[in-house]
């Protein structure tokens, strides 16, 4: 029981880290290597508001989300839309996007260093125990988990019930056909990309309540998110959630029952197994 709940909490953290990238890679078709930088920026905003003015990170997210949305919209329109326009194939877009966002990641790290310095963003928020069926859990992790449930649930509903959401899913499945049925691919791709950035930054603000970040930790989160998105299946919200929870429970199980030193090995073993037996990811579609 303890393993299950601790694992679920960790899985919720992973879902927060990965959900934004899934929107950007799965829906907007941009492999954004600068994704983690927005997570760190969100974490920094939470840290700064909390230490300077005592504002709860749970309120900061309402400032962070629109800012990150606007910044990512701009990035998409200025840097990435030209790439989408000139790309002759999906493969070419992928390569171009990786190179561009890789460079962008360096620029963002440099900017963060210049503005915030290289020190750790370390603060204590809701670091209190909560007891549930005889075991104690950290309140800040529980809060982040609840937020992850709300964000993922909201995204799922939005993608499945609204016109814009369904259109975005259509783009994820078949960008060329989507255009034929009158979907504004350019505009909705930008929307999906910007939304992904906002979700990532909000996730960053939430995880910064229990993880210690600094200006250059972004790439670690990009990598973790990438693994989860690929395990779950590119372009599927359910896949990312299931993969994140699986990873969280597996790591906690291995750390508790066997040895904490084996968690990385177990995580990568799971990754390799999924790639071997379902190369398109748990919920992914085979490329037509």
């Amino acid at each position: 029981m303890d393993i299950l709940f601790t694992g679920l909490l960790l899985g919720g953290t992973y879902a927060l880290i990965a959900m934004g990238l899934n929107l950007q890679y799965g829906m907007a078709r941009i492999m954004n290597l600068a994704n983690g930088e927005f997570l760190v920026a969100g974490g920094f905003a939470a840290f700064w508001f909390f230490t300077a003015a005592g504002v709860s990170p749970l309120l900061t997210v309402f400032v962070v989300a629109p800012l990150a949305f606007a910044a990512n919209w701009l990035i998409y329109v200025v840097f990435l839309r030209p790439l989408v326009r000139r790309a002759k194939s999906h493969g070419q877009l992928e390569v171009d996007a990786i190179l561009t966002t890789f460079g962008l990641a360096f620029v963002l790290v440099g900017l963060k260093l210049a503005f915030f310095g290289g020190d750790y963003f370390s603060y204590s928020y809701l670091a209190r125990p909560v007891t549930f069926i005889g075991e104690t859990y950290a309140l800040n992790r529980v809060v982040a988990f609840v937020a992850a449930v709300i964000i993922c649930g909201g995204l799922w509903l939005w993608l499945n019930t609204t016109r814009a959401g369904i259109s975005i899913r259509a783009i994820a499945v078949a960008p060329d056909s989507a255009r034929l049925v009158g979907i504004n691919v350019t505009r909705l791709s930008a929307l999906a990309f910007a939304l992904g950035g906002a979700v990532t930054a909000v996730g960053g603000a939430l995880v910064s309540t229990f993880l210690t970040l600094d200006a250059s930790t972004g790439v670690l989160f990009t990598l973790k998110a990438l693994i989860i998105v690929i395990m779950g299946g590119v372009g599927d919200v359910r896949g990312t959630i299931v993969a994140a929870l699986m990873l969280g429970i597996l790591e906690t199980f291995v750390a508790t029952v066997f040895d904490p030193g084996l968690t990385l090995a177990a995580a990568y073993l799971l990754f390799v197994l999924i790639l071997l037996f379902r190369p398109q990811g748990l919920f992914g579609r085979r490329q037509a």
Partner: protein
Amino acid sequence: MKRRTLFALTTAAAIALGAPLAAQETLKIGAVGPKTGPLAGGAAVTFWPNVQLWANDVNAGGGIDVGGTKYMVEIIEYDDQTNPGETIKAVQRLATQDEADFILAPYGTGLNIASAPIFERYGYPMVTHTAISDQIEDLSGKFPNMYFLLGGATGLAGGVVDVLNQMRDAGEIGNTVAMVNVADAFGIELAEVARPQFAEAGFEIVYDTSYPLGTQDLSPVINGAKDSNPDAFVAWSYPPDTFALTEQAQIAGLAPKAFYTAVATAFPAYAGRFGAAAEGVLGAGGVFADGEAFKEYAARHEEVTGAKPDFWASAPAYASFQILQQAIEGAGTLDKAAVAEYIGANSFETVIGTVDWDENNSNAEYWTVGQWQGGVFKGVASTGREGAVPAVPKSGWE
């Protein structure tokens, strides 16, 4: 593409701190360290502010006196991205292209060891401030111009064993120790040298595990340690996990009378984050916190850089620059070989007190364990420094 981006960034970093006083005679001093990458957070507390402070102090004091001529110092900075390959390239570039007169030792054990051969090849004296290793004898044999200020792994672990021993003799703790380490060079080496020392001192290690660097949830580690119900908890940890282990221990209610975490426990951010709960936490390092020399240094550090120094390697970092400065003045020349020789042949008065070299060019007297007491991280054990205060048992997290 990648290379060009990296190059542009390092160049930008290099010109960030340009020459403040170009009209006079200047010495070019190279500084290489992480501004990005895993060690950037530590370097931003311990290394870079001291580079700034030292340059400021030297220039405000009229410069370095070399045989009657005063030289201002100009710092040339490079970001090595916590990548040993980049450290080597940056040192090489400083030696050949920038023609730096002297180069400050880099930050961190691995990066120092990686670049030692390059310092040696170009003849630069290398006074390390943040290199902890038990290979000091081997290293100083290979690289005669390499000096060590922060001590060795055996001494650092031995300090912890001594402190726990004293607490046990005083009847404050019992016999059992839970020990965890980060699965990285520092953590593995410390855990390896600590195990036999604990056994020899008659301690029983009831929980012993490692966790990967960058682990996002350390609650299984803390829960495992708690289930073993130890009298003392010892973690050979790095900065992000030092914070995470402490927070998780609070949440899980792991509250032994002796709680030790390694790197970053001495950072001001540690007390800033945990407040009163930090009281009684033991950690790597320590300083003579009540000594006038440290107080005066800490005040100047805060005034010039806007940040507080840490209570471990900050002062030794500054001291290593002082040693270089005193050696240049003492030798009265800019000849690197003569300066290196002067360093080895003399002892130095620095912010951490007198520095004497042992047979391995290592500072024989260094701090090993400190403890948060009354909001200050005070040295409680050292290999001969004065000013240690007795360690007190920790009473919970409240």
